[in-house]
């Protein structure tokens, strides 16, 4: 294979990313909330040898408004908890990485660390996390514990002007720090089962993390032993300076949303310049793939009553054209792509059965999985615990 390997992920959400995807003739909207649906998608992605799937989630209904429900009845509404979806499909897959979305704004870092460790155990080292913040007043009202101002159109263009934006990302960075410390809080060899002394663990190899921050303090250690990967993969979507800083400091993978190769080059350089030297940079793309892609997109736009728009660039074309674009953009300093299928399963199948063979023909994508863990797929080593060797 030439140069560095190309990495491919798909972002799974509802019936696909186009709001009318559920009305596609091949869609299966009745089973969106069943395990069989998600298991089928993951199996297809694994058939295509993809690095990982992400699973979208929010603590509020989907909406076309910036903040608060829109009352629309013609789009998919409702989601299952993404971590539980990931763990439900883990035993049914063998190699593909599983990266659920979970917010840091209203959740307990201690629970997140344990849930993601457990996902790593049930998947045999394939767990990741897409870290998300929740800057919506409507979501805060579901918890009743903090006030978040309404996100208004004047903030939307430049989120950095949104008053709580900095605070939410600072909190997210603290949450990731706590979660990472908890993953390290058991050294790998903490379980000793020493019958002579009657001890199951060597408590000197269990560590308090003693994190103190403005939003939470966490004592530790984790209730879950160190997960198979040591540190499951931490990923984040980022559109502007503040989240770039967050990703450079806290994540292993960042998803960026350039609209052309030049932007990809500029953003990748900016993120790396912020200290994300080891960070893997993926570009997000919404994809309509196939000979009929243009027609399908037009038909869905008509059903939805609006031309589809996205934060990410939107690709419409054949597998060969998509391969051309990915290989061109990747020269801009990208490690991979997170493709958002516009319609499920149609555009996922077009990726696994069209794009992937095309990339393989060009010697640009793996022909078999070479590693067993998600970190392994990305060429990331298994880190030692930061506490290893320190004794209380």
């Amino acid at each position, binding site marked *: 294979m030439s140069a560095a390997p190309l990495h491919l992920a798909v972002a799974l959400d509802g019936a696909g990313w186009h709001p009318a995807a559920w009305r596609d003739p091949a869609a299966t909207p009745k089973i969106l*909330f069943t395990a069989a649906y998600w298991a089928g998608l993951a199996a297809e992605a694994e058939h295509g040898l993809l690095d990982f799937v992400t699973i979208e989630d929010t603590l509020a209904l989907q909406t076309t408004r910036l903040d608060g429900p829109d009352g629309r009845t013609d789009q998919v509404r*409702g989601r299952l908890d993404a971590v*539980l979806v990931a763990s439900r499909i883990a035993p049914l897959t063998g190699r593909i990485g599983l990266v659920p979305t979970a917010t840091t704004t209203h959740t307990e870092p201690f629970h997140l660390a344990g849930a993601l460790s457990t996902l790593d155990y049930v998947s045999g080292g394939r767990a990741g996390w897409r870290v998300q913040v929740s800057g919506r007043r409507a979501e805060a009202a579901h*918890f*009743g514990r903090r006030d978040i101002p309404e996100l208004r159109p004047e903030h939307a263009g430049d989120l950095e002007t949104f008053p709580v934006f900095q605070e939410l990302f600072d909190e997210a960075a603290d949450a990731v720090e706590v979660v990472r410390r908890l993953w390290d809080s058991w050294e790998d060899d903490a379980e000793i089962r020493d019958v002579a002394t009657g001890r199951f663990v060597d408590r000197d190899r269990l560590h308090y993390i003693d994190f103190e921050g403005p939003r939470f303090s966490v*004592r530790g250690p984790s*209730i879950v032993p160190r997960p198979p990967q040591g540190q499951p993969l931490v990923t984040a979507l980022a559109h502007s300076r503040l989240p770039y800083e967050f990703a450079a400091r806290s994540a292993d993978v960042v998803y960026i949303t350039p609209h052309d190769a030049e932007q990809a080059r500029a953003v990748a350089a900016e993120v790396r310049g912020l200290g994300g030297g080891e960070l893997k940079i993926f570009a997000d793309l919404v994809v309509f793939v196939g000979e009929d892609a243009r027609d399908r997109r037009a038909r869905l736009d008509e059903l939805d009553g609006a031309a589809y728009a996205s934060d990410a660039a939107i690709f419409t074309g054949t597998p060969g054209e998509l391969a051309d674009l990915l290989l061109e953009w990747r020269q801009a300093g990208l490690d991979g792509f997170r493709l958002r299928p516009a319609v499920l399963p149609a555009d996922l199948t077009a990726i696994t059965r069209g794009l992937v063979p095309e990339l393989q023909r060009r010697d640009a994508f793996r022909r078999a999985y070479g590693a067993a863990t998600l970190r392994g797929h990305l060429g990331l080593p298994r880190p030692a615990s930061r506490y290893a060797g320190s004794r209380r």
Partner: protein
Amino acid sequence: MKQVILAAHFPGVNNHTVWSDPASGSQIDFASFAHLARTAERGRFDFFFLADGQRLREQRGRIHDLDVVGRPDSLTVLSALAAVTTHLGLAGTINATFNEPYELARKLASLDHLSGGRAGWNVVTSSDAFTGENFRRGGYLDHSQRYERAEEFVRTVRELWDSWAAEDLVADPATGVFATANAGAFAHRGAHFDIGGHFTVPRGPQRHPLTIQAGDSEEGRDFAAATADAIFSRHSRPADGQAFYRDIQSRGAAHGRAPGSLKILPGATFALGDTDAEAQENADHIRRQQVSPQTAILLLEQLWNRDLSAYDPEGPLPEIDPDVSEDSIVKGRTRMSRDPLKTAAEWRALAEAKRLGIRDLIIEVTGRQSFIGSPARVAEEINESVQTDAADGFILVPHLTPTGLDEFVDKVVPLLQERGVFRAEYGTTTLRGHLGLEGDV
């Protein structure tokens, strides 16, 4: 004849779980959880059960290292187990104190969808600042508010589960309606929770996942009788069980509960053998494994509330009395006795009468198996307990991971099936269905 309810408890972080036996497997690998769950399903059990604890236990200010330490996140492992089982109910213990109703209702409803209606929730509460050190909320809760908040928590969670009516999810491409405009709308205004908006999970197969409760205090019993579908009780012996059963049913009736709508399931341990004598030998062997010399001193310290590390496990009980001050040397679990001085006097008398050293005494006074005998005897005693209303069934706690239930399923379950008091095949697909509580939402 009443049908027996059976659940399988994954061996937990206490000295009943024997980790030193050569047959003892991993306490954290998924394969162990899958083995026990599949064994329970092969035995046509009603459900699989996970305990919980959100802080590693400590004694005398140090992490307790003699028992199994560490466990997975309950709901995450249960969701994975849904992939390797088809009928078995999947119940997890979740602390209401360190969760928010919106997030927990969402997770439980998600598990219910992902398992096809097999989710269960054992509601526990805590006012314990020690565990609170791991959470945003800390140990803020006054003891007196524990059950008040828990009651409102459960009520709020159920309101969220009801926020999608069955007809709110349409998903009809022909009409272009996916969900109704009001789907998921809720508003709860209460003393502990003041929340409103929209819930994201459509109504699950059970509508309300099964709710289990384990409180044993006056308030705990009342709370359980008013709100729970099942009670995980500690009263596995026939006389205690019958008294508890009557007490709960009368409290339930006072809350307008129909007889039979509240299942009482004591936790129970067992030791089997081809003959009763062999089973007794086996039981004694297990008890010695459960109480190592170090564990004997540690358990004695829990009653005495003192450092007893200088005492010989084979020697006599301490002459000094238990320290009954408020400050407990044990963190992360409940105290062993409400009246340590009285219990110590009883133990001393027993040790003297039977000439027992510390370890043998501890073996005698803590954790004797609930059922000891040949498969025929154990099947008979279980059935007798159920038919005489000492219980509706049992949550069985094996002493070994992951094979501790194998023999029970192979030898005791067929005898219960022969008597016609336990299902030979699943006739229902949901956890509520298995327990006959489908109509009780």
